[in-house]
Structure formats: C-alpha cells, structure tokens
C-alpha cells in the first residue's frame, strides 16, 4: 500500500470554505426504492441527445436500452427499472438556461425485472482495449463529477495521446457534497477496480487516486483495499482541502505538477482525469453488466429534515427522493441541483435526478446582503482566482462590453468556480457577469459567422446574376449579329415566301 503523500504542485488562490460535509456523512448510504414513475431525459450528458428506441406503450426491463447514442458525442440511456413507457414529452429539468427538455416517462410495474441475457466481463483483460472502450460506450457511462462528458469518447480521445498518468478524482472540494466520500467509504473495491480497468484499457502504468485531506475515513478505506489488491500501479495521494482543487485542470496541477494549456485538455500534458464515481460505474458495467441506471447523491442543507447520502435510480424526481428521507424543513426556500458554488437552482422539485446530479441542496432564505456597490479594486478577487485572472479588470471590460480586452484578460479561461464572488466586498456577482459576457462573446462569434455566411451568399448571388446577365447580353449580341449578317438574305427569303403564299 502506498501512503498518502504531500509531494504536490501548487494551486494558485482558492478558498477554504466551511465544509458542511459531516452533516450528511453520519449515516450509511440510504437506498431509495423505485418510484412509481421515472422521468429519463434523453440528454443526460454533454453532447448530442440520445435517440429514443422505444415506443409509447412499450414494456421495458431494468437496464434495457431506451435511447441510443447519437452523433459523435453521444451516450445511451437505459431504463432504470421495469415498466411501461407512457410518454416521451418535455419535462422540467435542471439546466441553467431553458426550462423543459424531452424525457422518456416510464410507469414502473414495481417488479424491477432486469434484462437478460447478461454479458459480464470479469476477465476484462481478455478483451482488446478498443473492444473494452466500445463496451464502455454501451453502458451509458458519463463523467459523474458533474461535467457528464461521455466517458467512452473521452477515453477514445485519450488513447490516441501519449499518456503517462491516470488521475482518479476523489477530491470533491465543493462544500456540502459528500457522495464521492461515501462512495469511497462503501464501494472502495468498485472504485479501485474501475481504476484497474482504465489502466488496462489505456495501457498505463500509474494511477494517482487523489483524495482531499478532509476525508480520513475514505482515505483509510481506500488504503485497506489497496493493501488487499497489492497493485503497485495505484498510488493514493492526499491533497489539501481547498476549493477548487477538484477542478480537472487544478487537480492535474496539484497531483502531477503540470499546467494544462489554455483551451487544452489534461491529455495535452499526458494526464487523464476520471471521477471516482465514473470509475465505479465502469467497474459495475464491465464486471456485473449494470449499466448506469442509479447513482449516489447527497441530499443536504438546512432545508431538509435528514441530510444523508442516497443511492437512487436515475429518473426519480427530486421531490420523491426528499420525501423518502423525511421531507423538507419549514425553512426550505432554495432548491439547488449540485453544490453551493457551481450548482443550478430550480424552482420546482419535479425535476428528475439525472447522471449529473451529485447533490440536492436545499437551503433556507438567502442571506440578504447590502446592495451592490462599485468595485473598489481591492484585488481580493485576483488573489483567490485559481486561474490567476484579474476579475476586477474583467468586470470592468465586461461592463464596457469590450470583447478584445475580455479575450486578452482571459475571460475564456475563467472556470466559473465562484471564488471571486465570495470575497468581493462590493457584492458584485462576478461569476454571473462573466457567464453572461461569455455568452455574449459566443453570440457575437455566431453572429459574425452568420454575417460572414450571408455575405458570401450575397456575393455569390451577385456574381451569378452578373454572369447570367453577361451571358444574356452575349446571346442577344450574337442574335443581333446573326440577324445583321443574315440581313439581306433573310429579307429576300421572306419576300420570296410571301410571294409564294400570295400565289
């Protein structure tokens, strides 16, 4: 077994936040029973929507494919339990912008009958790596750290690079969230087993398992399992408890001491990061043929009666989950899907729990702050920015809508971690403003592209019209010329014809 180590790279800035994690880790993971109805969005990943392959009224079994991967960035969706498809319709989901998204609605029969036959690969090393990756694609597995990038595609991209390290992300730096902590405590075998599958599939020699120092129980449990496995390739690394050390690029910086280039991927510096939850999901799929139909989610905050981690079928509504663990407290006012720094607030608990849902946070009334005042350039935002941006300057240029300056001050490098908001004495919603500025820049780029296309079309049309006009002119000139040349003869001919007719 390898002991936790401290030979780490340096992370700039960051914040030590009040963790609130022990609220939800005092009892083991609670199993939420299959609800009466499952709502499964066809887009639960970052990429092209999946294509439904079931019809309304069709009976489906637990684990059955109900929407297949479509497009280059696709991930399939499986039925989380057995039952009947009753609708494919828009349903409120948790997204930052826009409200409803198409979902497959299943009325469960309560039998929870799994699909047969089962294809298991306990000796996964007998499969060639690319077959293993194709198999992983079929499991509907996506990055469970929150970004929900389709895992198979991430691995297929990575396999083309000259990789050195696999990094398992068990950092979970955002306050309140403890689902990865509980996963590592209760399913350490699955997590490390998943790491072994990934090492084989990617032909790698080293995997760092990075865990934040505030998870002693998880570190202890992982250590035990590592000792059992005796796998020299797996190395446990303890990282300091500082937000946002669990960001992908930040973790690479910390664990491998390498800087991911702007706009690039960790694979550019020979690293691949996978969330511990994703590794466990890969293990469950490859060894036990359990597709991604459930996940562990933290239900917490001062708005819920019993903060706890739950294992729940995807498609269960947030309301159903909370009801099962004791409901809301009287002071519940904000419902947040995800953590308190990067999550998304929703107005209704009818939204379904999806692959990305690592936390359901219910909070009381937001603290009323004094009004936003002008920036006094205190620079605290710059000192906490993990990307070393100057948020105060960016804010200035965002107000001025100065696209060139925004670009040169690195707006697109902003990871929207929210650290600057929390230290701003002027209470400026910096992260929100940057999100808006990014959207405007994207819009502007789209608009430019559209204008360019329109210009090209317009010019092409003008050219075509001009060419046609020219051709017509030439034709006309030719006819005139012909007529002129033919002149005398033609008249004679016409006169002749007239005389003939008269006769």
């Amino acid at each position, binding site marked *: 077994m390898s002991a936790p180590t401290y030979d780490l790279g340096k992370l700039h800035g960051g914040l030590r936040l009040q963790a609130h994690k022990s609220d939800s880790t005092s009892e083991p993971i609670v199993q939420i029973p299959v609800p009466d109805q499952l709502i499964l969005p066809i887009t639960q990943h970052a990429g092209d929507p999946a294509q439904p392959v079931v019809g309304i009224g069709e009976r489906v079994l637990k684990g059955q494919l109900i929407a297949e991967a479509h497009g280059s960035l696709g991930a399939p969706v499986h039925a989380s339990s057995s039952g009947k498809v009753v609708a494919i319709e828009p349903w409120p989901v948790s997204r930052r912008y826009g409200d409803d998204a198409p979902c497959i609605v299943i009325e469960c029969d309560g039998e929870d009958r799994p699909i047969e036959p089962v294809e298991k690969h306990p000796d996964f090393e007998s499969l060639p790596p690319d077959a293993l990756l194709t198999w992983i694609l079929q499991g509907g597995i996506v990055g469970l750290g929150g970004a929900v990038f389709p895992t198979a595609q991430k691995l297929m991209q990575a396999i083309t690079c000259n990789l050195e390290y696999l990094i398992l992300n068990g950092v979970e730096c955002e306050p309140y969230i403890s689902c990865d902590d509980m996963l590592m405590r209760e399913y350490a075998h699955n997590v490390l087993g998943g790491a072994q599958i990934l090492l084989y599939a990617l032909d790698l020699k080293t995997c760092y398992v990075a865990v934040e120092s505030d998870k002693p129980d998880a570190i202890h449990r992982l250590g035990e399992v590592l000792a059992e496995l005796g796998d020299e390739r797996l190395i446990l690394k303890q990282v300091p408890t500082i937000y946002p050390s669990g960001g992908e690029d930040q973790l690479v910086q910390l664990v491998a001491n*390498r800087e991911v280039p702007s706009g690039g991927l960790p694979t550019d510096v020979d690293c691949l990061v996978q969330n511990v939850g994703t590794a466990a999901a890969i293990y469950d799929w490859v060894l036990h043929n359990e597709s991604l139909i459930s996940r562990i989610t933290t239900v917490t905050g001062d708005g819920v009666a019993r903060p706890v981690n739950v294992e729940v079928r995807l498609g269960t509504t947030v309301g159903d989950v909370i009801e099962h663990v004791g409901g809301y407290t009287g002071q519940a006012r904000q419902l947040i899907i995800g953590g308190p720094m990067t999550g998304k607030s929703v107005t209704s608990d009818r939204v379904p729990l999806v692959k990305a849902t690592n936390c359901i946070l219910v909070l009381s009334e937001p603290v009323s702050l004094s009004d936003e005042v002008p920036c006094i350039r205190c620079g605290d935002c710059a000192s906490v920015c993990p990307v070393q941006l100057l948020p105060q300057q960016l804010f200035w240029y965002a107000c001025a809508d100065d696209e060139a300056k925004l670009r040169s001050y690195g707006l697109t490098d902003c990871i929207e971690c929210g650290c600057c908001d929390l230290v701003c004495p002027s209470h400026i919603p910096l992260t929100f403003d940057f999100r808006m500025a990014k959207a405007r820049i994207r819009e502007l780029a789209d608009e430019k592209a559209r204008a360019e296309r329109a210009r090209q079309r317009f010019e092409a049309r003008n050219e075509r019209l001009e060419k046609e006009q020219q051709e017509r002119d030439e034709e006309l000139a030719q006819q005139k010329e012909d007529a002129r040349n033919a002149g005398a003869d033609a008249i004679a001919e016409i006169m002749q014809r007239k005389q003939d007719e008269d006769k």
Partner: protein
Amino acid sequence: MEFVRRDAPFLTPKVDVASMMLQVLAALVPAALAHVWYFGPGFIFNLVVATAFCVGGEVLMTRARGRDPVVALSDFSAIVTAALLAFALPSLTPWWVTATGSLFAIVVVKHLYGGLGFNVFNPAMAGYVVILIAFPLEMNLWVAPRMGDIDYISLSVLQTAKYTLTGSLPDALTFDAISRATPLDAMQSGLRNMRTYAEIRTNPMMGDFGGRGWEWLGNFFAFGGAWLLVKKIIRWQIPTGVLLGLLIPAGVMYIVSPGSNASPGFYLFSGATILCAFFIATDPVSAATSPKGRFVYGCGIGLLIFAIRKWGSYADGVAFAVLIMNMATPAIDYLTRPTIVGHSSRGGGNE
C-alpha cells in the same frame, strides 16, 4: 413547492465595503488620540470640519448625479477621506482651508471622476495638495509637540476653536511665537545649509529617530496598520513597497555619505511616512491592483518620497508621491499582469 431562483454561487460574501472602511477608521483611533495629546485639540476641530464638508460634498454630488446620498454615505468612504485629510493638516488650520481641501477631494477628485471606485487620484491627497499650494501660510503653522519643554506654548480648546473659526490667534501671541519648524523642515534646511546630520541631530527638537513627539505618532499609525494587515483589510505589498522604496535609497545614501544625509530611521519616523505606507498608499481605488503591481506601486511612492525630501522644495512629499504614482497606476497594472494559468511560456508543461 416553489423555490427561489438564483444564480451560483449560492454562498454569500462575508465582507463588505462599509465594514472595511469602518475598520480603517477604527485603526486610526490610536493615532488620533496621540495626535490630540501631542498637538492639542485642533485635530478634532479639523476632523469635524473635514467630515462635515466631505459629507456635505458627497450629498451634494450624489444628488446632482441623481443617486441616493444615503447609499453613498453608508459606505463611509467620505469619512475615511475626511480623516486622512485631517491627519495631513497642521493642528491649527482655519476652517475654510480644511473646507476647500475637503470639497475639492470629494466634489472634483471623487465625484467628477465617477464616484467611489472610479477616482484616479487619492481624494485626500489631491485635496491636501490643493490647499498646500493655495494656502501656503496657513499650511505651515505647525505647533511644537507637547513634550514638557519650557518654551512650549499651547492653545486652550477655546483659543483653538477661535483660530479654527476666524483664523486669528489670541492677542498676546503672534504667528511666529507658536509656529515651529517641523523636524523635516529643520533637517532639510539644515542639510542644505551645509550642516552635518550629526549637528542637526543635536537640536533639542530631535528625538530617537525623527523629531521628539512627532516620531511617536508613527508608532500609533504602525500599530493601526498592523491591525489592518492582520484583519486582511490591507495586504502587505504596498506598505512593504513604500517602506523599502524609501529606506533602501535612504540607507544607501546614508552609508555613502552619513554627514550630508539623514538616516533611514529619520526618514521612517518623520512626516507622514508610516501614515502613507499603511493608510494612504493602500487606498485600493487609486492603487495598482495585482499583488506584483502593488509592490511596484508602493516602491514608486517610497522612492518619490525620498527624492522629494532629499532634492525637492517641499519638506515631506508624501502627497505628491502618491498622486504621481496614481498617474502611473494604469501602466503598472498593464505591465504587471499575472500570467494566466495555462498560458505559461513553456507551452503548458512545467516539469
């Protein structure tokens, strides 16, 4: 059940501008008390006049700009400006002098540039410079600190109030009778008259490092400044920069030619050096903004203070140094931008 819709992050900041300003004011209290002890009650009158006109100017200008004066006043920045200006003034200052400085600071320097956060220059220093040039006589009436000396003349509270209101001294006293050269004046003119540093130091007005009494004020400013550092209201870069920028050239010159130069200790404990390092140069609005930029900014101020005291025609130079560096702020900010993570020159890999 319906929930409130908000945007991430959902945690809220625990700091605000008003409490920062109040802490700056609190950190000035020890120095204010010391000022009153050494130089009499004039400071309090100056503070009252400055506060009244700064607040008045703030109300006037926010009204004129169609904003809510209550919001503007509740950040306490106008009062901080008033306090800093009051510390810069001689303890005996007629009210119209203080009023001119206060109004110029708030109306012209702060609000005509767009109000809090947008002023290019430090309002208190700009206001001070205006009255320093406009009222040279009044601005040079410094009394001696109360050190138990025989020739020490102090004005009573009433006499001080009368002078503040009317600008006239008690009948028995003339301007020359109570006015004393400041240690900085004495040092500058002494050195220029070819007297040596050691000779000038024999003057009974000189204390351990700076002038007797005067140098003690520095300790109280340093005490308040240390508290602000601990509270993280200010960061170490600017104070360190100011002190190093001043003390390194002063030290070098003193080592090279100890007769014709004041010691670094004298530079440190004279005039407004420490007030500037912790309270004036650290005004975030008119200072550079990145950590590296702030250090450069501080060094520039220190260096300019040294240059003005050594070669300039003003004895102190803190206000001019700060205003000149205010002008350099945009350039410093531009040149000291930190390298954004992912943009390092080694193409990303930094093994």
